[in-house]
């Protein structure tokens, strides 16, 4: 497959310094907004059971009520309070995002470390495998896998985690390749520290910024993937709901109650956007820290 080598572009960094000030203020404001949004959404999702929210009581007399003071986001097709439904949906979406990210990052870091550190044939075999997995459209892979396993929360976490670690593995491998040649790693090897220990104590901490940036990106991917699968009916199953499965239900009553479709979509968009902005800001500060 195609392998792309990344060479650090010194000229770009020098040229960029003239623009850094203007760009930095813009970037830090948006990063701040992103963090604020994520903290609020995360906190509400976390303490949802303590809030006076009721996502389950149905009342057919008040079906499809538009947003009002009593029901901030209106009511759904069974008269349930949509604000509560969205908050609990967010709990599921964020859970899937975070756990799938953790799984993908764990697999990606382990594969990347082994490939980069061992080199040679092991590296070749692992990277061919990564190429192989990345070469099948993920949509096709994930759909096939989610049918084979019984749909539900853990299945979707597993499926997304297992099929989205390849980018992390590539990044960690590249990082490990350079770290392997650094003096402190070679010294640790020289004085006979065990291989696993060298990787864990010396390589992982130095690769941490890369890993964190990759992890932020994979939360976004996981949330978007979950929402698409749930929208297709292959993800989260009722009575559980996520933002994606709320959208699946909302599709049926698009004409009568468009707000049912509008709200979860905006939340997915803002959450994914915030994670991406955060990831960009982290990457920026990592590369600036490395340059100085």
């Amino acid at each position, binding site marked *: *497959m*195609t392998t792309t080598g990344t060479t650090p*572009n010194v*000229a*770009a960094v*020098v*040229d*960029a310094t003239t*623009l850094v000030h*203007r*760009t930095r203020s*813009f970037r830090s404001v948006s990063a701040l907004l992103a963090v604020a949004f994520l903290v609020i959404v995360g906190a509400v999702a976390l303490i949802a059971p303590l809030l006076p929210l009721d996502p389950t009581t149905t009342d057919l007399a008040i079906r499809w009520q538009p947003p009002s003071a009593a029901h901030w986001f209106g009511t759904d097709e069974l008269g349930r309070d949509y604000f509560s439904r969205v908050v609990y949906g967010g709990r599921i979406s964020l859970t899937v995002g975070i756990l799938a990210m953790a799984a993908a990052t764990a697999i990606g870091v382990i594969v990347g470390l082994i490939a980069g550190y061992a080199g040679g044939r092991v590296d070749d075999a692992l990277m061919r495998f990564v190429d*192989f997995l990345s*070469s*099948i*459209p993920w*949509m*096709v892979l994930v*759909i*096939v*896998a989610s*049918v*084979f396993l*019984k749909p539900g929360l853990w299945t979707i976490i597993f499926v997304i985690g297992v099929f989205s670690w390849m980018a992390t593995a590539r990044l960690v491998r590249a990082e490990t390749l350079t770290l392997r040649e650094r003096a402190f790693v070679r010294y640790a090897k020289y004085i006979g520290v065990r291989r696993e220990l060298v990787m864990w104590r010396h390589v992982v901490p130095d690769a941490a910024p890369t890993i964190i940036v990759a992890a932020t990106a994979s939360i*976004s991917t996981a949330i*978007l993937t979950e*929402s*698409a699968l749930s*929208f*297709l009916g292959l993800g989260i199953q009722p009575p559980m709901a996520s933002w*994606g499965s709320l*959208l699946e239900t*909302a*599709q049926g009553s*698009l*004409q009568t109650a*468009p707000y049912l*479709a*509008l709200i*979860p*979509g905006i939340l*997915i*968009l*803002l959450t*994914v*956007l915030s994670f*991406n*902005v955060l990831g960009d800001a982290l990457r920026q500060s990592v590369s600036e820290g490395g340059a100085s």
Partner: protein
Amino acid sequence: MAVYILRRLAQVLPMLLLVTFVVFALLHAAPYDVVDTITTPQMSEETKAAMRERYGLDQPIVVQYGLWLGNVLQGDFGYSLASRHPIAEELAARIPNTILLVAPAYVAALLLAIVLGLIAGSRRGTLVDKTIDSLSGVGIATPSFWFALLVIYLFGYQLRWFPIIGMHSVGKQGDPVDFLLHFVMPFLVLVVAFFPELARYVRSATISQFSQDYVLVQRGFGASRRQVLTRHVGRNVMLPIITQLGLALPILVTGAIVTESIFGWPGIGPYFLTATRSLDYPVVLAVLLLSAVLVIVGNLIADILYVVVDPRIRIGAGS
């Protein structure tokens, strides 16, 4: 060159066998099979067993795989177990519909991305750049199926400009105006789904080209920003874009699965989704094989284009 292509193809075959066998095995490990989805509870166990025998589902997995493979090599994808229609016919009818939708959308998205990316990248840090970059950021974060719902609500239900489902109105097959009306909304959704990442790509390629020494030299000799952009940076940015065309080949078939099923577009998407839901494995395998072949052929084309398009590589590549 011919040797290179042959060697690449030789690497490809084991991969295809592996992909199809893994999917074959996965579908067999599933807790139910296609017979369960086409039979009714009233049918006796004997009838079901007879059906399994007729479909060959009682054979060991390796035998079933071998039979399937043998037939595919003779160009026979078999029959859909659920609908009994030949898969090759079904694919031949549906693939053109998908291509008809996806190809124009991808080309439009690519052109839009090249224009916006070059503008943003060459004016780095300005308001125009920030606007384009933020727009791409929002685009990347937008679930395309949600955007499709918004488009359907606005243009389909509120304004009633476009029909919300299908590719033709009943009885109007072959009417180009009717086709275009059906085409607009899914086309728009796909363009919005495709362009943001491409635009980001073009933008960052442009930025890194502008930081090259040759730009400084050109400017030093009095070339304007526009001249540098069109004569030098633009050409250098286009090289990786052209190779992207090869990598985009599989999108032609599997790039619109969700969008197609929302708009009821009679392409590969709805066919594949229905088949996976009912574990109609010959269909799933056929689509998977098709997309794997396209990915691999696309990669091959990208690698070849890369050499063909860039004179620097062509001259340097003696080995």
